[in-house]
């Protein structure tokens, strides 16, 4: 029986602005299990940053409860809240390091707050610098470090208080792709080897794919879809999720020439089918042509996944043969109506529905 480390119950957050009340979060219910690497993805303005900040009560929810390890954080006095906060670390897009302290000093900071004796604290901070591969930069100041190095210091600082959870608020959004990969693999190692639960806020699908086992899609302050990353990727139920899973969805309004193509299918390949030459075998087996419109292969936590948009033969009978072949091979597919973009359509057998 998995243990819930963080539970949000009916969390609503309203902001009073000059233009009136703005609802940033609307009745959010979320259970995160110990050891999860839980991704929360959404476009900017969806409310994901507000959501993660309610977990450690940097943002006080207007309504609802935040529960950490069976105790409600909402309603606690500042002393008790601060005690719990030491077990919930956080890393940020802008790193938020103390500019007047060197790398070692930054890692010492949470230990000083907790009153750890100096000698012990220094020893621990030095070990953590090794964990993030920055031993030789112990006495460099943040202004002398690159973005990736700063985030490594921030991660070491986050680890210093022996947290049970690390909240990652767009932790790689300010970094280049190569540095992003190395930070994500460091976070994943921390999740796997230390069993520290991660809550990962991002607008980039790539981050979810490399780092998370669970995902929640947030749109307009509500969670519209959630589940195992594999499932949501293979069978996204909502348009919001499908848009996010097509990496170039923002500009993937297909040119007319391609949306006008009839008989289109969106195929999804899983671990079993991703390595097989399905399309070429289908052509050989059916003797019918296939028009390839879009294809993309991805790794989800190292498992190969792929999706493709193809157009079947214009001949109805031939198209039926092709579909039968796909069903036999166990490839999930959806038919896409003429003149629409492929992400507008859910997979076969799954209706568009908002999560209750």
């Amino acid at each position, binding site marked *: 029986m998995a243990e819930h480390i963080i539970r949000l119950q009916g969390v609503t957050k309203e902001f009073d602005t000059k233009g009136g009340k703005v609802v940033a979060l609307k009745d959010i219910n979320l259970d995160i299990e110990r050891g999860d690497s839980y991704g929360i993805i959404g476009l900017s303005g969806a409310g994901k940053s507000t959501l993660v900040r309610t977990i450690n009560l940097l943002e006080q929810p207007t309504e609802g409860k935040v529960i950490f390890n069976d105790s409600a954080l909402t309603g606690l006095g500042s*002393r008790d809240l601060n005690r719990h906060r030491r077990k919930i670390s956080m890393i940020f897009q802008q790193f*938020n390091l103390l500019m007047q302290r060197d790398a070692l000093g930054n890692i010492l900071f949470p230990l000083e707050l907790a009153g750890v004796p100096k000698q012990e604290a220094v020893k621990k901070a030095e070990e953590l610098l090794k964990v993030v591969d920055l031993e030789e930069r112990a006495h460099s100041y943040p202004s002398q470090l690159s973005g990736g190095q700063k985030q490594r210091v921030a991660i070491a600082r986050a680890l210093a208080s022996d947290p049970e959870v690390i909240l990652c608020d767009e932790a790689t959004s300010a970094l280049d792709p190569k540095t992003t990969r190395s930070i994500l693999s460091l976070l994943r190692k921390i999740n796997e080897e230390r069993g520290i639960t991660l809550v990962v806020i991002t607008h980039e699908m790539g981050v979810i794919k490399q780092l998370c086992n669970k995902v929640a899609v947030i749109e307009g302050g509500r969670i519209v879809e959630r589940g195992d990353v594999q499932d949501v990727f293979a069978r996204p139920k909502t348009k919001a999720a499908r848009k996010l899973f097509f990496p170039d969805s923002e500009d993937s309004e297909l040119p007319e020439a391609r949306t006008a193509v009839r008989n289109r299918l969106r195929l999804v390949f899983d671990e079993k089918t991703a390595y097989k030459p399905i399309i070429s075998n289908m052509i050989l087996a059916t003797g019918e042509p296939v028009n390839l419109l879009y294809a993309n292969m991805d790794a989800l936590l190292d498992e190969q996944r792929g999706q493709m948009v193809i157009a079947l033969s214009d001949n109805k009978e031939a198209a039926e043969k092709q579909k039968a072949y796909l069903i036999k091979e166990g490839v999930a597919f959806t038919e896409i109506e003429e003149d629409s973009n492929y992400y507008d359509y859910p997979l076969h057998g799954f209706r568009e529905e908002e999560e209750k």
Partner: protein
Amino acid sequence: MDTGTLFKLLSEGTVQTLTMTLVGTLVSYIIGLPVGVSLIVTGPNGIKPAAVYNKIMGFIVNVIRSMPFLILMIAFMPYIRKIIGTGIGTWATTAALILAAWPFVARMVEQSLLEVDPGVIEAAQAMGASNMQIIRKVMLLEARPSLLNGAAVATITILGYSAMAGTLGGGGLGDIAIRFGHYRFQPDVMWITIIVLVVLVQIMQEIGIRLAAKMDNRIN
């Protein structure tokens, strides 16, 4: 006036001016620093907003800041005389300096603290730092270079006030400039006093800038 007398006069005046300036600045900071911190902490975006306190304290600071120093000194002279027994001389002037300068110091401190990255304060809150820890270990330390620059400006302003106080029998270099340079028509004394003041300001500014740069770990 022979050189020896002039030298003695000037060195006494300089010591008095420095005493008034340094004691005045120190006490102004003892009052103004906590007030400046409190204005930031209780502000609308502060770590412990308190609108009523913030409004009242902000108002007091503004009222005193809007009084020209000389007027303030004259207005408060009777009270200062009552409290410390005299309305003229080094100590009376120092008292008036503190009265006029602490709100200025509070605003300088407030400005410096505004420069602290709110993200860093938020990070400290997320780590479970208490408000006191945030003030001591985050705000004041992160703003240190700016606070030191501000302290140099404050010291120089207070030096200027103390020279003005000389016109009201306040002692120090301003007193010498008025009594000898002005009333006794000795422009040479006037100009020598001005030169000494300029040198003092230069030294203070230079110390402030160097200290701030030395204490700033952002630039390398």
